[in-house]
């Protein structure tokens, strides 16, 4: 039970953590100043959410560790984030689609988590939901703006949708650990979120003139620490300093 809670807290914390890293890579590279601020602000929100989850995970752990250890010192296989957030900032359309898919997911998941039997889960969800609502609004607007914009923006957005769709099956997998939590009313049935997720995504797709890809999505092993080939490079970057200077302070 405690291990299951830990696993899910890690799942949520790692997902926000990796996504925040991708968003913060955009700092000073945004298409224009205001969007640069917006993307990094959203990145900071994700760092905050990640910190809450990893703090709780550290409390649940039997080892003497803290949130920083979990963020910076684990091996690749020990991260349980969804694979979608690892996808690089190929171009701005990829940034928008990746964010939009995650925002819809987080919105549905956090809405349900506010009723969690675990009071810390419920509290984190309550706090995060306000931020997520804003993220969703921001990314949905960009979906429509790009999809319904010029022929180039439309084409680039559709390319990003076609590529990233592959990773969305990952969001709704229910391994044993999560099934146990769902049975106890601590988390919702993740597989049950899929139809609502599809509905919300399709509403925006329709407005943006996006076509839903026809192929089967990948139900990956991200719960067991399987990652895309991009993950190792990210770890190299953000783990380099903490590994070199183990006692480094902020």
């Amino acid at each position: 039970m405690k291990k299951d809670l830990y696993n899910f807290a890690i799942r949520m914390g790692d997902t926000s953590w990796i996504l925040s890293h991708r968003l913060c890579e955009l700092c000073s590279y945004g298409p224009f100043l205001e969007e640069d601020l917006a993307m990094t602000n959203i990145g900071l929100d994700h760092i905050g959410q990640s910190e809450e989850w990893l703090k709780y995970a550290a409390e649940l752990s039997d080892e003497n560790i803290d949130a920083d250890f979990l963020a910076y010192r684990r091996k690749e296989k020990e991260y349980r984030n969804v694979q979608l957030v690892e996808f690089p900032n190929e171009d701005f359309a990829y940034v928008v689609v990746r964010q939009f898919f995650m925002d819809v997911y987080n919105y549905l998941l956090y809405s349900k988590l506010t009723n969690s039997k675990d009071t810390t889960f419920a509290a984190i969800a309550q706090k995060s939901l306000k931020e997520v609502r804003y993220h969703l609004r921001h990314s949905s607007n960009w979906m429509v703006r790009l999809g319904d914009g010029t022929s180039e923006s439309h084409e680039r957005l559709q390319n990003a949708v076609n590529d990233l769709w592959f990773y969305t099956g990952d969001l709704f997998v229910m391994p044993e650990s999560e099934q146990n939590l769902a049975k106890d009313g601590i988390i919702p049935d993740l597989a049950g979120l899929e139809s609502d997720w599809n509905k919300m995504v399709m509403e925006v797709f329709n407005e943006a003139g996006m076509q839903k890809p026809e192929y089967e999505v990948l139900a990956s092993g991200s719960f067991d620490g399987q990652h895309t080939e991009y993950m190792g490079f990210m770890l190299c970057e953000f783990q380099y300093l903490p590994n070199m200077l183990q006692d480094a302070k902020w």
Partner: protein
Amino acid sequence: MGNTDNQGPLWEVFIQTKPGAPYKHAGAVHAYDKEMAIENARDTYTRRHEGTAMWVVKSEDIVAVQPEDADAFFDPSDDKIYRHPTFYEIPDGVKHI
């Protein structure tokens, strides 16, 4: 992004610090449409609890007095001190003022 200005039109941002207070000009942001303008304004000016309500308005929709017209608009009031309430002496019999 090169030398061309493709950041979209300017929008002026007004923030109300608490309910009932007047909206104060906070600055300006670039944006292509209304939704983007209010989001950009939020991300630029209200991250530190600066307000509870906000307006954005396209800068080009604001009618402003041109600096060269300022004399004609504002100076004539300079010698009309009787337009200030303090110009008048209040009779002793008047209470509650």
